[in-house]
């Protein structure tokens, strides 16, 4: 599930600095508001022991909407994003007809501070918070074709760093993020009507390890819009009684549109 989260997440991260980088590439230091829309797919592996000890692998698709706003003469950047992903997973190793359907949504907010770098590049560091929910429908391959639903929720907070530099006519951005604390709801069993079992837990880096990194390229802007290409890799391990492991490779493509400059 996290991998999905990671994907939009990644895309978003990429976008944020890309806008700034592009601005630099154009020789402008204006404060800009940007809206970006991206869609793409990811190849993911997941093992949620609450549902099954089998690792599952599959292809997901999803979209991301992001809004960036520069603050304080472009020294700060606030970024808001919302994403949704869905996918179908099959056992990665066993020849079982079991199937998992995953739906995942996340909202994200980040606040970054820009620092000048060499050769027109810029670093940015800050903090990012996410809130996401993942719904997994697990189809067991038993004689009764039992279907069980599993819900996972996570709210996280952690540092984020980006590096943006002009590249060709566009801009390249690399971002890395890793939450250090999370409020995780990983129920002990499947969700059923009449049962409201929640297992909220405040988890630190010892139990909740999530990290992602992305490379984004934004083409030269035309008529105030640019094209974005993002590749992201993300891993998540949640050390619960019934652990959760996910990893994903994601590719997103989309457009970003400037909504105007506050002032030069």
């Amino acid at each position, binding site marked *: 599930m996290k991998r999905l989260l990671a994907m939009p997440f990644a895309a978003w991260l990429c976008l944020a600095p890309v806008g700034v980088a592009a601005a630099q590439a154009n020789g402008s230091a204006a404060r800009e508001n940007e809206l970006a829309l991206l869609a793409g797919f990811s190849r993911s592996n997941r093992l949620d022991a609450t549902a099954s000890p089998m690792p599952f692998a599959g292809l997901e698709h999803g979209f991301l909407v992001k809004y960036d706003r520069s603050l304080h003469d472009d020294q700060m950047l606030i970024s808001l994003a919302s994403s949704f992903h869905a996918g179908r997973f099959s*056992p990665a190793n066993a020849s*079982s007809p079991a199937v998992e359907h995953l739906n995942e949504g996340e909202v994200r907010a980040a606040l970054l501070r820009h620092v000048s770098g060499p050769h027109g590049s810029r670093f940015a560091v800050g903090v990012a918070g996410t809130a996401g929910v993942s719904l997994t429908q697990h189809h067991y391959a038993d004689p009764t074709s039992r279907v*069980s639903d599993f819900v996972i929720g996570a709210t996280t907070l952690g540092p984020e760093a980006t590096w943006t530099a002009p590249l060709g006519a566009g801009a390249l951005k690399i971002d890395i993020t890793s939450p250090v604390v999370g409020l995780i709801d990983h129920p002990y069993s499947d969700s059923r009507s009449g*049962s409201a079992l929640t297992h909220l837990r405040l988890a630190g880096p010892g139990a909740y390890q999530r990290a992602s990194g992305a490379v984004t390229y934004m083409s030269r802007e035309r008529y105030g819009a640019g094209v974005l290409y993002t590749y992201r890799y993300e891993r998540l391990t949640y050390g619960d009684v019934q652990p959760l492991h996910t990893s994903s490779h994601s590719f997103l493509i989309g457009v970003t549109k400037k909504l105007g400059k506050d002032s030069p």
Partner: protein
Amino acid sequence: VKHVRIAALLVLALAAGCQGVATDPAGTASRAALFDDLWREFDLHYSFFELKGVNWDSLGAHYRPRAVAARTDAELGAVLAQMLVELRDVHVSITPGDDGATMRYRSPFETGAIYADSRVVFSRYVPTSHTSASGHVRYGMATPTVGYLSLPNFTGSGWANEVDDAIKDLGAAESIVIDVRGNGGGNHALAPAIAGRFADRARTFGYLRRRDGPSHADFANYEAEVVEPAGDSRFNGHVYVLADRRSFSTAEDFVLAMRSLPTVTVVGDTTAGASGGPIVRELANGWTYQLSEWIEYTPTFTTFEDSGISPDVVVQVKPTDPSLGVDRALEKALMLASPR
């Protein structure tokens, strides 16, 4: 063109990266790992360790070497099934592989003598009967004022409304006998849904507690089970529910729900005592198994696992009754239902 190139490069990079994560090169899990998976899953989720006095550690220590020594998948499946049979729980089973048969514990009540036979009922006591569209309900008039309604199982879903049709057709009945003898259970939700056709108001008929932690004593709070008026053909007359030792699981839930209603008398024998709510799980090799995840309680917070639910009116029956064409429990219910 440049954009297409960039996109193509990123797709290639993604495809290359996928190869490293798409599959696990470790291959098929070992027998020891499969055994450990199964043992641990039961350890984490099975509800009756304490109630049944099962020492799961000891069972694991006993059966693990046998599982590791198994030479074939069939042998491994048999060893795992032997361990699970020790739980003496009809809701526990394992299905090793696509072609493997489901293996589970069989209660003595399943394999013992049969004391009630529907053929006797419909040939002698209810000679004219109707069967609902899905075949789940068979009914007719046993006397001019007493209707008879048989529910041979609670499998499937969405057919509770067929009981409405039966109640309409039994319009002349002042009382109804509902027969769940030999009913092996099925869909838990059907029990209160059908009982609701005879309910005057909402009543709590039992409680559930689900495992929600790694300790064998970790359970969530009590969840009330409620029967409330349902359907469009509610029956307000007296109801006699026939139950016996072959009434399992959801059939017992039905007896429990009906017993909470003031217009219901349970007649016959004690039920089987199989109260665990089964969930399905799977092993790393794709085999599936089933285990009980909850404990069910009566409204007075007593369990009926293994002990069953006793009737209001006990009827002594004999194994020779079916062959003699006699149904003493039904006769007793008809006697109680007949106007004096």
